[in-house]
């Protein structure tokens, strides 16, 4: 069975986000030879179109009205719903990013569509498309499918293999009618530290109460910088004021699935484990050999993080320099 698939591309700071390539790769898998198209909203360049073609988008809808240059739910919903009416794709994919999670339920509501959000895997079994997602913040998984209507899913960044399939992408201009915008974005204040977003980081260095202070987190940031990773934290560390709540990982924070998770001075409460235990590889550094974090760790060092982390930073620096 072939499907017509539409992927909403997303860019940040002038670059197409990696999750868009993941979504296009999933789209190739689901298309069964059908057409894969992408939608590019806001400012774009010819390079963007070519890049989308590299991952199998044979058609790129370009929507570059001024109302779409800054994301708002209203403008994006109007634009994408009109495109969906026009394009008649029966599978729609986008990243489960700040934009995806904000706009996808709105579009699904307007179009009367189902939506399976925050998927970590997709497979076709017996002709049926099954999406896997985390529930209870990673304490369990579920597989969901569609009973009626179009297939619409948001994909969690960093969970889908990327496959190139170069095609010549054809640019198609699409001009939706955008009106009656009800929200105005006044300003965006950059606060994200280190430039690597937690939800997309391949490596996360995370700290708990054992880090003891905001200064202690600087040690973690140094290690994260060397590894091009991001810094995260347990609820305990956030509650103690060592870092911002936006860094919190766990059942009431972010649920992350990086390639490598380095837990420093985190005991491993069940709420924290829920948010990180599906990471591919987990390293725990803790003074307490009985800390529950060691039960989910692939590698553990029992020791004082204030000694271990600087050593680890030095060792990685040396190693990465030697393997440049």
């Amino acid at each position, binding site marked *: 069975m072939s499907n017509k698939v539409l992927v909403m591309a997303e860019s940040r700071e002038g670059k197409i986000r990696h999750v868009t390539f993941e979504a296009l790769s999933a789209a190739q898998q689901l298309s069964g030879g059908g057409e894969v198209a992408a939608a590019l909203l806001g400012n774009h360049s010819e390079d963007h179109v070519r890049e989308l073609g590299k991952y199998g988008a044979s058609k790129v809808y370009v929507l570059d009205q001024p109302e779409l240059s800054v994301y708002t739910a209203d403008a994006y919903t109007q634009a994408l719903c009109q495109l969906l009416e026009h394009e008649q794709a029966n599978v729609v994919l986008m990243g489960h990013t700040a934009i995806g999670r904000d706009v996808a339920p709105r579009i*699904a509501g307007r179009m009367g569509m189902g*939506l399976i*959000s925050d998927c970590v895997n997709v497979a076709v079994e017996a002709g049926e498309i099954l999406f896997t997602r985390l*529930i209870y913040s990673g304490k369990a998984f579920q597989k969901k499918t*569609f009973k009626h209507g179009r297939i619409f899913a948001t994909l969690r960044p960093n969970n889908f293999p990327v496959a190139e399939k170069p095609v010549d992408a054809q640019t198609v201009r699409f001009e939706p009618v955008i009106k009656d915008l009800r929200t105005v974005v*006044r300003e*965006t204040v950059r606060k994200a530290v280190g430039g690597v977003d937690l939800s997309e980081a391949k490596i996360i260095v995370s700290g708990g109460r054992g880090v003891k202070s905001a200064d202690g987190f600087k040690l973690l940031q140094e290690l994260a910088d060397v590894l091009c990773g991001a810094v995260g934290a347990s609820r305990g560390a956030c509650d103690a004021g060592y870092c911002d709540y*936006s860094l919190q990982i766990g059942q009431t924070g972010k649920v992350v699935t990086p390639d490598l998770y380095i837990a420093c001075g985190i005991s491993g409460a069940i709420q924290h484990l829920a948010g990180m235990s599906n990471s591919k590889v987990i390293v725990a550094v803790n003074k307490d050999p009985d800390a529950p974090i060691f039960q989910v*760790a692939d590698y553990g060092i029992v020791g004082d993080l204030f000694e271990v982390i600087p050593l680890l930073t030095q060792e*990685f620096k040396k190693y990465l320099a030697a393997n440049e």
Partner: protein
Amino acid sequence: MNILVLIKQTFDTEEKIVIQNGKISEDGVEFIINPYDEYAIEEAIRIKEEQGANVTVLTVGPARAENALRTALAMGADQAIQIETEDEELDEYSIAKLIAAAVKDKAFDLILGGYMAIDSGSGQVAVRAAEELGIPHVSAVTKLSWKGSKATVERDVEGDVEIVEVNLPFLATTQQGLNEPRYPSLPGLMKAKKKPLERVAVADLGLAQEELEAKTEIREQFLPAKKQGGKILSGELAQQVSELVQLLRHEAKVV
């Protein structure tokens, strides 16, 4: 101001998940108000205390979910609506239809709800409800301030802060950092027992069969594979650290 707060009763965050016959077991489970919804309740009560408001809490769920509504009433909400259903096949599409049908004639100025529920984690229902009701939404809100009927809202965008202006009526989903939810007081708990709680049956909402029918369905639920015992390193600290780097490089292949 007339405020509606959408809440969900969820498993306590301490609970381990047990699957029996393909279903998540509720045996012996403690239930709480979804933590993100607590921020929504708290914010509504603060608005009520600061500028006067009437606060309604609403949930869709089985009989046990009444406890979550009573807790919200004890925190300071004025009345509650429970759309009572044991139907486990409802999905976000159909639940949003139920909520919209129950409140469409009640003219709420502000609707608040958690940014997501910690059980299903899908983060759809509140935004879908805003769409059904034809009002704008602002999601992942960490600060709300007012000038008459205009709100200035700060929202969390992947760690950055976006400042948005929007007029009433609108729906906001609440993110951690917005406030520190209060515990219900003892007098609050006593009063909550007498506050009005309206029970609504799904059949009374006048929805067509196709609006009640879920678009998606769950095929399988399962626990993550158990981890093999990890490797605890030993020896001199410097040696452990260099061994770790080698292991991450050559065995785990993640750096």
